[in-house]
């Protein structure tokens, strides 16, 4: 019922080649080729509708590409349970009657296997994950009672309980206040120590430059991919964002008119 695939050693954790994805009748992603190594932190930056979520869903094996290949440690994503997909907060039904610990335990559904209920070992995984994200004391809360930053950390805990080696986070920082953003970014540092590879979709170029090993500039195709200093040039950014990018005072400071329309969460019931 549940398939697991063993990893081949010495392979890039993620190897994407010539990926083309059609979504709702138009090309969402064109000719995407890149690879990631274990423990890397990559920020995926681009305007709204650039295909960031689509890319994550294809890598996670939830969407099928029209052509091209995704390999994780040398095998196809559909065989893998080691990919943690962390959804945008506005995609989640926060009124669902589950506690924080319940949601984190969901990460272990596959490892548990069919017909099994959580064992002591699984609760240890869940508790450890909750401790890592500093939510242990909120474990029994219903999920709508968490703040935006706590909700995001809960999903990271779920990916940890899942024993994810590749985490895909869809705009985890959008709509969070600065301390909450710092909390998430610190958590990313801890994940790096544990050799977890992380891809984060973000709108914040400054954070992308300061907290990530590499930046992927995406607008249906890869505009640029490399170290922050190599990628964040005016030319590249203009190419990715088009007219929505306004240089300020002719200096090297850029203002991106690409509002994050998600805003602060409307789900504190």
């Amino acid at each position, binding site marked *: *019922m*549940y*398939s697991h695939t063993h990893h081949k050693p010495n392979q890039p954790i993620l190897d994407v080649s010539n990926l083309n994805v059609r979504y709702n009748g138009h090309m969402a992603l064109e000719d995407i080729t890149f690879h990631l190594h274990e423990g890397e932190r990559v920020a995926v930056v681009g305007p709204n509708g650039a295909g960031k979520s689509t890319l994550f*869903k294809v890598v*996670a*094996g*939830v969407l099928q590409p029209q052509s091209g290949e995704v390999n994780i440690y040398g095998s196809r994503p*559909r*065989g*893998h*349970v080691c*990919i*943690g*997909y962390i*959804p945008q907060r506005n995609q*989640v*039904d926060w009124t*669902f*009657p*589950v*506690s924080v610990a*319940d*949601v984190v*335990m*969901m*990460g272990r*559904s*596959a490892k*548990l296997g*069919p*017909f099994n*209920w959580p064992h002591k070992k699984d609760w240890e995984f869940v508790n450890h994950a909750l401790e890592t994200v500093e939510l242990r004391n909120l474990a029994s809360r*219903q999920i709508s009672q968490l703040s935006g930053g706590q909700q995001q950390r809960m999903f990271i805990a*779920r990916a940890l309980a*899942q024993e994810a080696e590749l985490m895909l986070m869809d705009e985890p920082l959008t709509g969070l206040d600065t301390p909450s953003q710092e909390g998430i970014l610190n958590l990313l540092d801890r994940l790096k120590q544990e050799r977890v590879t992380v891809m984060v979709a973000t709108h914040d170029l400054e954070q992308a430059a300061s907290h990530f090993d590499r930046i992927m500039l995406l607008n249906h195709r890869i505009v640029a991919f490399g170290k922050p200093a190599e990628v964040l040039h005016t030319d590249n950014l203009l190419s990715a964002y088009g007219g929505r990018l306004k240089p300020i005072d002719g200096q090297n400071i850029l203002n991106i008119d690409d509002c994050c329309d998600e805003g602060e969460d409307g789900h504190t019931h």
Partner: protein
Amino acid sequence: MDTLISLLLQPLSYEFMQRGMLAAVLVGIVCAVVGTYVVLRGMAFFGDALAHTILPGIALGYLVSGGARDTLFWWALGTSVIAALGIGAISKNSQIKEDTAIGIIFAGMFALGIALISTVRSYAVDLSHFLFGDVLSVSAHSLWLILIFGGLVLLTVFLFYKEFTTLSFDPILAATLRLPVNLLNNLLLTLIAVTVAVSLQTVGVALMVAMLVTPAATAYLLTHRLSHMMLLAAIFASLSGIIGLYLSFYLSIASGAAIVLTATVFFMLAFGWKRIKQ
């Protein structure tokens, strides 16, 4: 006090009331547990449509068997499972929006059912039994079928509880965990279909959606845990069945309607209580 006890006991001296109570409680529990997923996944319209869609199946069984009631369960079950999986497939692969597609099928099938039944002379009475249920005419044979198939539904929910919950809360997580998402979705549709067949005699086609949705929604207002929601929903549904049948007995109102009205009152009380508390 004595009068109260005799008021409560007197209806139970009739065998049809005992069987009716038992059926109402069993059906209530099964509907409440399955209904929890119906409410959480926003499938109320699907449940309503499914219940109406099985009418031509029942009508056909009715015509074939020459009016005998005992075989109707199997006709209902067969139609219900086929319709559930059919609606599931159509709404997934259709250019038309899901609710429109369901609406077209459900109204068309319902009309076909009415057309079939209208060929029989005693059609008004029989049709009203199918539409609104007739729990007081449940036979011992039907009661066994309710017990067996209701039990199977509950057992399946218990076995796949964590999969159904994960899938309902976050389908993308279920897919990344490589859970068999399509299989589980179809299994859930089948469970709803079996529940509809099991509930047919109690509340009938037209009121079915209330049994699926109302007790579960009442419980949803009062708890933040899924397992508690199922338990509370089952309690509300059982109480609705029992109180509804007493009301039906003493006030001479249709049993299915009385059960649904009681469940609705529970919902309104919970809704009001929640409003006051906030």
